[in-house]
């Protein structure tokens, strides 16, 4: 994967597979510290301790079509490559939290890439799952919560074309605003 937003999309697929109804994606950047933290949380089926221990091992997967699950090990690697860290906490029946921490000034830091494309693609094909996207930069914050959007929509599908376009522009403009405030 060439950008972290693709890893995020892939990790969120695990949450979808786990039957999550609410998925949280949080990006937190600090310019002063040159750090980025990415947290993906869900209320899906979760994993027991033994499963968690094996998930970061590329030769473990519960799926039967292919023997190697690579998504989690790849994501873990992107963080560790920068001298950062990675963790998974999970409770069966409760949900899972996947966290990756990056040193953004490290030479092996990958670009974050297009988080808006990741969010709109997730929402467009999973209209019944709720997503909370939080983007924080130096203490400022932007939140996109599909529960709030659905409340306004009063039954109009969240994946109807005009709504998806709105969500795309909404995220892009607010992300740009976060950057602007930096000066």
């Amino acid at each position, binding site marked *: 994967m060439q950008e972290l937003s693709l890893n995020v*999309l892939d990790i969120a697929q695990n949450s979808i597979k786990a039957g999550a109804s609410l998925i949280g994606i949080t990006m937190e950047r600090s310019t002063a510290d040159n750090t980025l933290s990415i947290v993906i949380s869900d209320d899906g089926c979760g994993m027991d301790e033994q499963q968690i221990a094996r998930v970061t091992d590329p030769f473990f997967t519960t799926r039967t079509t292919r023997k190697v*699950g690579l998504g989690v090990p790849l994501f873990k690697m992107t963080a560790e490559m920068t001298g950062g860290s990675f963790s998974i906490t999970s409770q069966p029946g409760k949900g899972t939290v996947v966290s990756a921490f990056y040193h953004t000034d490290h030479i092996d830091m990958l670009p974050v890439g297009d988080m808006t494309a990741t969010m709109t*693609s997730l929402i467009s*094909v999973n209209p019944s799952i709720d997503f909370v996207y939080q983007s924080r930069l130096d203490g400022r914050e932007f939140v996109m919560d599909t529960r*709030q959007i659905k409340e306004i929509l009063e039954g*109009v599908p969240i994946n*109807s074309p*005009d709504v998806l*376009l709105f969500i795309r522009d909404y995220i892009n403009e607010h992300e740009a605003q976060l950057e602007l405030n930096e000066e």
Partner: protein
Amino acid sequence: MKSLEELKAIRDKAKNSVHVRQEGNDCIRVVVGMATCGIAAGARPVLNAFTEEVAKRNLNNVAVTQTGCIGICQYEPVVEIFTPDGQKTTYVKMTPEKAARVVADHLVNGNVVSEYTIGANAK
């Protein structure tokens, strides 16, 4: 800057428009493989291209959905199309440009784009 207020206008417009998304037998399903191998190979722009082309052309009988690993990683991004006549077409090594052509030729005009199918690409 966009505010959630604007969403109300979009909602009201959608509520007043007559077109209703068709479901069931008349529906064409576009299924994009979104496993790790698919995403790494470029499934995200392919998925978004299908969504955008279908929206642009107002194809109310097309549902774009996703699935996990289709099991043919070397051909990713893979897209399966299920038409009401019961046919399944598997397109391989997809790109946003190919997606636009598949929407125009296959979804709108009913002509399978043979050169993009797995049959034409299998070696």
